C-alpha cells in the first residue's frame, strides 16, 4: 500500500475530490496547510504599510491506496490539480506498512 500526499492549490480541492471519487476513491484526509516552495510568499502594500504573506495557503490531501492503484491515483490527482502554473503543488508517495480499521480490526487492503 502507498500513501499519496498531495499539496495543492485551495481552489483545486473540489476538482481533486471529484476526480478521485470518479475512479472510486472516496476516503481522504484534507488539511489546510501553509507553506512555500518555489512559489514564495509575497508582500502587499496598503496605505504605505507592508503586509507580508510569508506562507502560501495550500491544501494537503492524503489518500492511501493499494500498490496497483497507485499510478492511477497519482495521475488523477495530478491532472485534477494542474493549472499549468507554478504553485500547482507537489505529490509525495510513500510506503504504508499497515492499515487497521479501528471498528472491525480489519487489516491491509480490506481496511482501505
Amino acid at each position, binding site marked *: 500500500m502507498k500513501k499519496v500526499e498531495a499539496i495543492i492549490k*485551495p*481552489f483545486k480541492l473540489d476538482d481533486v475530490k471529484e476526480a478521485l471519487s470518479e475512479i472510486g476513491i472516496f476516503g481522504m484526509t484534507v488539511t489546510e496547510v501553509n507553506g512555500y516552495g518555489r512559489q514564495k510568499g509575497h508582500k502587499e502594500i496598503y496605505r504605505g504599510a507592508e503586509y507580508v504573506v510569508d506562507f502560501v495557503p495550500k491544501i494537503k490531501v492524503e489518500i492511501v491506496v493499494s500498490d496497483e492503484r497507485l499510478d492511477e491515483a497519482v495521475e488523477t490527482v495530478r491532472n485534477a490539480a494542474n493549472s499549468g502554473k507554478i504553485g500547482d503543488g507537489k505529490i509525495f508517495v510513500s510506503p504504508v506498512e499497515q492499515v487497521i480499521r479501528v471498528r472491525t480490526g480489519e487489516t491491509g487492503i480490506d481496511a482501505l
Partner: protein
Amino acid sequence: MSDMLWHAHCLYLEIQINNKKAMDKENTDIFIKKREILIGRFLSGDEPEFLEKHSSVLDEYFFTIFEKSISSRKLTIAGTPFAIIALGGYGRKEQCIHSDIDLLLLFEKEVPPEVEAFLQELLYPLWDAGFEVGYAVRNVNECLEMAFERFDILTTMLDARFICGASLIYSGFMERFRSDLATKHLKHTLNYLYEHGEKRHFDFGDSTYLIAPDLKSGFGGLRDYHTLLWYAKIKSGIKTRRDLEYYGFLSNFEYLSLTESLNDIWKIRNFLHSITKRKCDTLYFEYQTELAGLLGYRSKNRAPDVERFLGDLHKRMDFLKQINQIAFEDILESTRIGKGTSEFRTTKIDGLVIKKGRLYFTNTVAVLQKPDLLLKVFLESGLRKIPLAIETRRIVSEFLHLVDDKIKKDIACIKIFKKIMSQSYWEFNVLNVMLATGILEKLIPEFSAIVSKIQYNHYHLFPVDKHSIRCVQIINSFKNHRGSATKSLYYSVFKEVRNKNILFFSALLHDIGKSDPAKEHSKTGAKTAKPIFERFGFNATEVNDAVFLIGNHLILIKTATRRDISDEETAIYMAHKIGKIRLLRMLYLLTVADSQATGPKAWNEWTENLLKDLFLKTMGVFRKGELASKKNQRLIDKRKKIVLDLLKEKWSEDKINKQLESMPQRYLANVSGQSIVSHINLYTNLKGKDFIWQVSEENDPDIRTISICGKDKPGFYSKIAGVFFLNNLDIIASQAYSYGEEHVIDIFKVKPPKDRIFEKEKWEKAQKDLVHAINDDHFLDNALDKIPRELQVSSGKNPKPNTVRIDNETSSFFTIIEVFTYDFPGLLFSITNALYRTNTNVDVAMVATKVDQVVDIFYVKSLVNDAKIENEHELTLIKKAILKSLPHITAKEMNNEKS
C-alpha cells in the same frame, strides 16, 4: 504462649478480620444499592432532589463505617480524634452522579500513623467499587496554611461540610479559617478570585455557544455560580445557596431564576454522566441528540429535537453568565478603594441613576413619561460600561409596549440606537442585554425570526442572533490598533469606512434571511433588510450599499477559498462585482467579522491569509483604476456582444462565452471586437503547432499587423521581436497578452518590407526563422551583434539618458518595468532579450514609439516562480541587463546650426 493458644488466637483474629471484611462488604453493598435505586428514580424523573439525596446517601455510608470501625475508635481512644469533612461539590450537597467525592480527615494536632488502617476501611471498598474518591489527611494548621497558599484548596474549604467525628475540631477549624480569611487574606483572596475567573474565561472561552459546551468550567457553566457563592462566603460568611438572597447578593427574582437554571443544568449534567458512565462535563456533539431525546425534547415526528434542547440550555447558561457578571462586578467593587456606597448617584441622563455600580431608573413613572429612557439606559450602560441592574432589565422587559411606532420613527431615538451599536464590545456587549430584554426584537421585529435559531452542525458555534451580535462586536474591536499586522490592517480599513452605521447595521442584519428554508439566505436577507434600513431613515445610497453588503456577504470568502487568487483575473472579477472601493472596504470587514463570529472552522490563520490577499489584490485593481472602471466594463461588454454577433452562426453562445472568459480583461479592453474574432480563429487553427500567425493590411498601406497565437514558452515574445529585426522589419508598436492558461496572443504593428514585390516571400522567411528561433535558443545570437552600441539623437543639446524604472507597487501580480530610451533598430528585441536572459517572462507589453522617444512598458513575472519579482538583488540585475542592452546615447553635433 503455647502453640495451641497461639493457633486459637490466630483463628480468632482471622474470624474477626473476615467478619469485619464481610461487614464492610455489606455496608458497601447497601450503599451501592441505595445509590442505584436513587439514580434510577432520578433518571425516570421521580427524584427532584437528587443531588441532595445523593450526598446524603454518601454521608450515611461514611457515617456507618465511622461508627462501626474499630480503628476509628482506637484513634479516638488514643486521644487523636478527628472529623470527616465533605469538600467541594459534595460539601455543597451538589454531588452529581460521577463527580469526584472529596473528603478531608481533619486532626487537631499531629496526624497519627494509625490513621492508615481507618483509611483502608473507609476508602478501599469505594475504590474497589469504582468510585473516584479524593482524600486528604491533615491537621488544622496544615490545612490553614495550604488553604491560603493554594486557591483551589481554599475554594474547596469554603464549601467544607461536617459529616461525622469530632465536630469541635471542624467548628474550631472553620472559625479560624473564616477569621483568618476576613482579617489577613481578604483582599488577596478576592483578587485571586477575580483573576482566576478571568483566566478561566480566557482558557475556556464562551462555552455557551461552543459546539461542545462545558457545563462546569465554561463561561455560563456551573463555575459561574460557584464563583458567586464563594464570593458571598468570603465576603459575608454565608453558609448555603439560599443565603445568597437573604444576604442581598441576589434579588428574589434572580435567586429563583438561578435555582431554575441550576436545576436544569444539573439535570443535563447527571444525564450526561449517566450515558457516558463517567465524569464527563463536556456536552460533546455526539451525545447531544441522545440527551435531547432522554430529556424529552422531541419534534412532531418524535425525533429528538436537538436545536430546541440546545436553545433552552443556552438560555440557562446565559443566565449563569449574568450571575457571573454580578459576582465579578461585586468583586471589583469591593476590592476598589472607597467602595460602592448604597446611595444613588445621579447620571447626566435625567431619569437614570447608579447604585452600587448598576444602572437604575429613578422610578417607573419616569419611564412612562419618557419612554426613550428605555433606549437611553442601554446607551448609558454601553458608554459607561455599567451593567443594568436586574431590576432595570425587568422594567425594560415589562414596558416594551412603550416602544411603539412613534418611538421607532423618532429621529433622536434612532440616533441613540445607532450609537449603541458602536458601543458593543466583547467584555461588555450591551446588544446582548437588549436581546435578552426583548427590546431589540421590538425595534427590529424581523430579528425575531433568527432569535435562538440554532444551526446544528460542526460549523456554526452560535445561534444566529448571537452570531449577528458577535459580528457587530467584532467590528467594534477593529477600533483597536494593537495586535498582529493583520489587526492593524483591519484598523486602518475600518478608519477609512466613512459610514460606519451602515457597516454596523449590515453586520447585525447580514443573516436576517437565515430563517429562509430555501437556503438562499443572502438574497432573502437583502430583501428583508431593505425596508428595515428605510425605516431607520437611511438614504437611498446607504440603503443600496447595505442591500449589496447583505446580499453579497459571502462572495469574498467564497472567492478567496474557491478561486485562484494568484490570478489577476480573479481580482479584476471581484473589483467589477463589488464596483466601489467603499463597498469593498465594508465587505472585507463584514466578511472578517462574519467568519470570526462563526467559529474556528470558518476562521483561522489560513482563511485569514487568503482573504487578506484577495482584499489587497482587489484593492490594487481599484487603485489602478482603469481596469475596474465602469467605462471600461461597458467597453468590454460591448466588445463581447460584437464577438457574440460575429460568431453566433458558427458557434454556440455557451462556447463563445467560455472562450471569452478565458481572455484577460486587459486584452478585451484593448483589442477590437473584429480582432478578437480573428484571434479566436487563429487559436482554433493552432492545433498543437508552436504558433500560428496572420499578416493583415490595415487602412494605412505602410503598416502591417501581425497577429501571433502561440504556446506560452519562455522568450517567445523576445524571439518574435528578434526575427523581425533579423528580417529588417521595423516594429512600430506591439502588445502581448496571455491567452487562456497556456497560450499567448502577440500583436505587432510592423512596417512592411521596402521591397513590396516579394513581400509574401519575406513574411514566409520570417515565419521560418521564428520556427528556428523557437527550436534553437542561440539562433538569434548573430542578430544581437547587429544592435547598435552608439546612438546619436538630435533632440536638443542634452538627450535624456536611458532610464529603466521598476514599479512593484501598482500591480499585485506583476513587476512593471518602464524603459525610456530613443528608437533604434532592434530596440524591442534588445530589451526583451535582456529580460529573457535574466529569467523574466513578459506577460503584457505595451510598446509604442512617439517620434523617436519611446516608452516601453512591460508587465513581467519571474520565470522561476511565476510571480512578481520582489528580490532587490534580482531587480538590480534586471535593470542593469536592460541598460546594458541599450546603445549609448549621444547628441548629434549641432555646432553648425549654431554658427
